[in-house]
Structures are given as C-alpha cells and as structure tokens.
C-alpha cells in the first residue's frame, strides 16, 4: 500500500501542487491529506469537467496540475478532452479511480468498471494502473506529459492507498 504522505511529497517534489477533483471513496485518505496540506492546493470542483477546466487554467498560468475523479465521472470530461485538452495540448495529470473493477461493486459501477480502460484507449489517452511502485508510474506519466503535452491517466484500484 502507498502512504498518502509519500504520494503527495513525491508529486510536490515534481512541482505538481495544484489539483482539483470530485471525490471517490477510493481517494478518501488521499483527499484528506491534500485538503489538510499546506503545500497542495485542492479545489473541490462541482463536476469533473469543471475540475479539468480549473486545472487546465492552472497550467495556462504556468503551474503543473492534476485532477482526481471517480471513473463514473469519466463521461463528463470526454468533450473537455476532445475539444480542449487534446487539441490545445494542455497536459493535466489525471487520477481516475476504478470502481467496478472485475465486476465486484455496486450495480451503478459495473458498466463503467468494464469500460473505463477502453474509453481511455478510444480517446488515445495514455493510461496505466497506478501500482505500489508509484514513483515509476508517476515518472512515466509526467514523461509523456512533458513530451506530448497531453493529459495522462493513472487508474487507481480500491485498497492501493493506506
């Protein structure tokens, strides 16, 4: 499991200190740490596309930024990705929870649980599951963002964070 303090310290070390999002229980401890942090700014967005907008604005103002959302809200950022971030080349680091993984979840999460990866693939968003070796995954994501200037997704399964 990943200690949330290590996770945020690593991101802050890479100058990623501006985040927005819509909560997911998978991120509970991650968000608690961010909300109480003096280093990380976390904007509680009203919907996932607003989180993308706010974090994209931060990027335009010269910051490195990201979002944390539940995969059920992935649909809300499809238009934001296709008609904004991907064509204006606005890289935002996206942490997307994976409710419905392997079909073991509440009914409302089962379809998106099956479709999360294929949706991201269909949109040509580079993605991988976040692992306990989170530093390697973050470096991979940040590397692509710096090279291609597009959003990259890290998918977060239940139980990864302490």
């Amino acid at each position, binding site marked *: 499991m990943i200690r949330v303090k290590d996770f945020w310290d690593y991101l802050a070390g890479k100058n990623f200190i501006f985040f927005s999002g819509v909560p997911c229980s998978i991120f509970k401890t991650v968000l608690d740490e961010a909300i109480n942090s003096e280093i990380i700014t976390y904007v509680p967005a009203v919907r996932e*596309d*607003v989180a993308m907008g706010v974090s994209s604005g931060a990027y*335009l103002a*010269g910051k490195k930024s990201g979002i944390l959302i539940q995969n059920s809200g992935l649909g809300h950022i499809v238009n934001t990705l296709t008609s904004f971030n991907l064509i204006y080349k606005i890289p935002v680091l996206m942490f997307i929870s994976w409710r419905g993984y392997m079909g073991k979840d509440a009914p409302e999460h089962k379809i998106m649980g099956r479709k999360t990866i294929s949706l991201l693939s269909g949109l040509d968003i580079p993605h991988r599951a976040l692992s306990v070796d989170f530093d390697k995954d973050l470096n991979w994501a940040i590397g692509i963002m710096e090279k291609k200037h597009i959003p990259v997704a890290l998918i977060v399964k239940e139980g990864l964070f302490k």
Partner: protein
Amino acid sequence: MTTEDILRSVLAFKVDNAVYLFTNGYISRQAYGIADSAKNFYLIGSMGLVSSLGLGIAMNSKKKVVVLDGDGSILMNMGTMPLIGYIEPNNLIHFILDNFAYHSTGNQPTISENIDFLKMACACGYKKVFRFKKISEFKSALPEIFNACGPVFVHMVIGKNDSSAGPRVGLAPLMLARRIRKTIRSL
C-alpha cells in the same frame, strides 16, 4: 447593444495586466475579428468551460482575468458560479453576454430570458455585480468594473437583435495555448 459593441468597448478599455478569455461560438469569433491580441484566448469548442478555466488562471496569477461568457455557455455549466463565489478570486471579472440564444448554431432560444443571473451571482457569492442594457452606461462604468474587488459579475443584456458572426479563429489551438501561457508569464 450588441455583442460587437460590448467586445469593442471591453477591448478598447486599456488595462495593463489583463488577459481575456472568450467562450466558443460568435463571442470568440467576433473578438478575434475586432482586435486579436496575445492577451486573448479563444475557446473554439468545449462550451461551458471558459469560467472554470478563468478560475484556474485567476487562482494562479496576479493578472486581471476577464471571462467573456455567453448565456448558453454559463447555463451549460452553472455549477462554476458557486465555485467561483466559494474560491473568491479577487482578480476575476465574469461577463455574461446574454442574447437569449445559441447564436452560432442558428439563433435557437436559450432559456436565459427568464433567468435573473444577477440574483444568482449574488447568491453564489460574487463580491460585486452589475447589469447593463445600454452600451453608453456600460462604457462609463468600465473603470468601476475593472477596479472592483472580485469576483465581479457583469450581466450584459443584449436581447435578440445581436451582431453577426466574426471570422473563424485563424490560429491553431496549440498556438493559442502557447501564446496565452507566454503572455501570463510575461505580464
């Protein structure tokens, strides 16, 4: 009063450290046609996004961030208004250019004619709110609008006889993003 009148007035009012964000459709196109500048950022799509983009910029820079939003666009993503009120960026000015219509898709009516945006802005926590129906009154209030401590909300009631399309934005989205980033860094 038309969108063109308003954009001409806003862009002619000189402010040292401002950036201007335009929502998609005719607002972007007319602004591009009237006075393109490195301080301008146009959305060519992603309707409803301009207010949250403006918020993200305002939170991370000391520049005056001027958001030129439309009635259809703010209605699509009205949740941004209480978020702006909650965050309280004092450098954000949020204009709604309200022509009661989705103009660029053929002037289909929005539902804005029956909505009191000013009451909403107050309820959402904007610090200063204005409404104008006459361009002369708007022009004389520009110093007050730009000097007010934000977030400022300005409802521009245009009505149904609005100005027509400007040219399509002739710069690639990637170049628009690079340009505004450079402008924000250098202001």
